[in-house]
């Protein structure tokens, strides 16, 4: 399908036109998704319409389709399984029924008893886990069907932390929208607030000043580095290798403290706002960040050598929880989940924004798709972030950090930012009064959670925590 009528450039740079598409456009998009020519970026509902964002990876373009719909729309999921959960969420939140959908069960709505998929076969037993888990993690339910110790099927049930974020957005002023965006998935607050700001700035055709964009990138790379370090440790801890968790958490804590010194918040929350950043980076802040980075750069290689040289740990991670490159590609899996399984997409390189086009960095990629590959991806991305931060801190441009953006409308824009977990997509529509008419936030986890179900198949139940942590999908970002 030709996306030209929908977009002639990266849609993030300018306001969106709101054109309705026809049923035949919608069907040809479904066919293109089915054939693997396009990747599904997002699918969401709004009053009397359903919308779909598509990515043409070859042409590096994003397109948007808007199909008017009163009560129903033709199911995308029947052609393209990655759309199924998104459609079920549309049905729950907007009452728009995906006609012909293979799975009509609710997803985010938990009002009625939930029929899990039937299982038939010899010697099968089921293990229900959650929503309250043994560890300190978010709530979700996992229904394992096992034969002996081997997992035959995992079925996830999510939606437990659905907070109605998109409904709260409607009618809110931009500042309130940014606050909510930063609390959609706490570990990615910077990525969300940047994507939200990007959408607002694109819609209002009012870009943030270069210094603000640089500071945003500093925050984003600090967030990525801190999360990768924390998770490398946590994955090893799930293989009972606690020393790595202790070591990595020391480095992570150092980064959080430096972020607090530089930006007044340990996770850099509420620094990024539409129009720029609320807080400039001072020389003292730069020094604090540099000191933390020096500590990481000095100690990380020793930890990597420890990971690489511990056979008992590798025995748990190599070959475990293997995700096939075909599935990663079909689901458009972002972040280290996709890049560890052959899908080399990174928004910072493929659809650059902010200062990334001017920076040099490698985007690591692997094909094995196992826990080990995901650990290595995180190690290599952490190393890349160290390099990026060095360039960013050395090349901070001068000038203001606020553009003085004035909300007005109607206006629409989208944002796409590479969080540590993958690409965070935001669509924002402002009404005539400059207030939010509709905001959709799509976490990368939407396309990673289903792949966890595939990756665990054939593994033993005892390896699930390891697989789950190596994916580290967001519950809150997904449940909204």
């Amino acid at each position, binding site marked *: 399908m030709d996306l030209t009528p929908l977009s002639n450039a990266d849609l993030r740079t300018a306001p969106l036109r709101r054109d309705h598409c026809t049923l035949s456009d919608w069907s040809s998009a479904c066919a293109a998704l089915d054939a693997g020519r396009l990747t599904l970026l997002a699918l969401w509902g709004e009053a009397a319409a359903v919308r779909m964002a598509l990515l043409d990876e070859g042409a590096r373009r994003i397109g948007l389709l808007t199909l008017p719909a009163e009560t129903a729309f033709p199911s995308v999921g029947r052609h393209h399984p990655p759309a199924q959960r998104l459609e079920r969420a549309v049905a729950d939140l907007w009452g728009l029924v995906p006609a012909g959908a293979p799975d009509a069960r609710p997803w985010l709505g*938990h009002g009625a008893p939930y029929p899990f998929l039937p299982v038939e076969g010899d010697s099968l037993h089921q293990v229900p886990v959650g*929503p*309250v888990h*043994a*560890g*300190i*993690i*978010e*709530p979700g339910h996992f229904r394992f069907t096992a034969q002996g110790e081997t997992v035959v099927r995992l079925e996830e049930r999510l*939606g*437990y*932390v*659905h*907070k*109605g*974020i998109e*409904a*709260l957005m409607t009618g809110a002023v931009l500042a309130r929208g940014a*606050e*909510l965006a930063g*609390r*959609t*998935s*706490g*570990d990615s*607050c910077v990525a969300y607030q940047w994507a939200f700001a990007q959408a607002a700035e694109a819609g209002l055709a009012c870009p943030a000043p270069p210094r603000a964009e640089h500071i945003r990138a500093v925050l984003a790379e600090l967030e990525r580095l801190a999360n990768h370090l*924390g998770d490398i440790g946590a994955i090893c801890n799930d293989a009972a290798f606690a*020393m790595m968790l*202790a*070591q990595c*958490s*020391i480095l*992570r*804590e150092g980064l*959080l403290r430096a972020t607090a010194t530089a930006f007044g918040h*340990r*996770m850099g*929350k509420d620094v990024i706002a539409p129009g720029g950043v609320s807080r400039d980076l001072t020389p003292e802040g730069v020094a604090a960040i540099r000191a933390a980075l020096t*500590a990481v750069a*000095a*100690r990380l290689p*020793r930890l990597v050598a*420890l990971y690489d*040289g*511990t056979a008992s740990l590798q025995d748990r991670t190599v070959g475990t929880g293997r995700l096939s490159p075909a599935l990663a590609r079909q689901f458009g899996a972002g972040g280290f989940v996709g890049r560890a399984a052959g899908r080399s997409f990174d928004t910072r390189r493929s659809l650059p924004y902010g200062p990334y086009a001017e920076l040099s960095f490698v985007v690591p990629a692997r094909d094995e798709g196992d826990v080990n590959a995901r650990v290595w991806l995180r190690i290599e991305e952490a190393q890349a972030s160290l390099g990026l931060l060095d360039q960013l801190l050395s090349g901070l441009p001068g000038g203001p950090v606020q553009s003085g953006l004035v909300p007005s409308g109607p206006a629409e824009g989208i944002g796409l930012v590479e969080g540590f977990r993958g690409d965070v997509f935001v669509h924002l529509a402002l009404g005539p009064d400059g207030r939010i008419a509709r905001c959709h936030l799509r976490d990368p986890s939407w396309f990673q959670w289903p792949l966890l179900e595939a990756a665990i198949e054939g593994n033993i139940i005892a390896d699930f925590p390891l697989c789950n942590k190596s994916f580290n999908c*967001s*519950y*809150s970002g997904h449940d909204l």
Partner: protein
Amino acid sequence: MRKFLLQGLTSRPLIEAAPLPADPAVEELGRALQARLRGGLGRSLTIRAVDAGSCNGCELEIHALANPFYDLERFGLHFAASPRHADVLLVTGPVTRNMAEALRRSYAATPDPKWVVSAGDCARDGGCFAGSPAILGGVGAVVPVDLHIPGCPPSPTALLQGLLALLERAATGA
């Protein structure tokens, strides 16, 4: 790995800038906490964390309590895998409609005497999520709360301070 461990044992601590920069505030808090634990509750306090709808920011800081800077366990505080083993339920998030029943059951499964600590601004009254039909409100809307720890998210130091305040209150029978 053996070499790695031996180095840590025989030379200085593994962390090159040894010893860990023990934050005096954390140290003091921890000592006070330990004194209270010895007095009122034997030697330890077991905590069960329940996420009733948080954005996962609070969970990150609760995890940080276990890192070598705060090292919660040296003060006799630990996290349990089940509410049945807990003295304290540490509840985060606004309570979503979809988590309310799970929170009620976790509370019912915790043996008496028990305390509930809500952590995070949204756990007080829904915070920035207040007014959403998908949530029931703060933690207090579903289970009785003994203490609230503010912050978005509360820092590990704030969490320690909160636990201390809880013990003060428990000891005076308030």
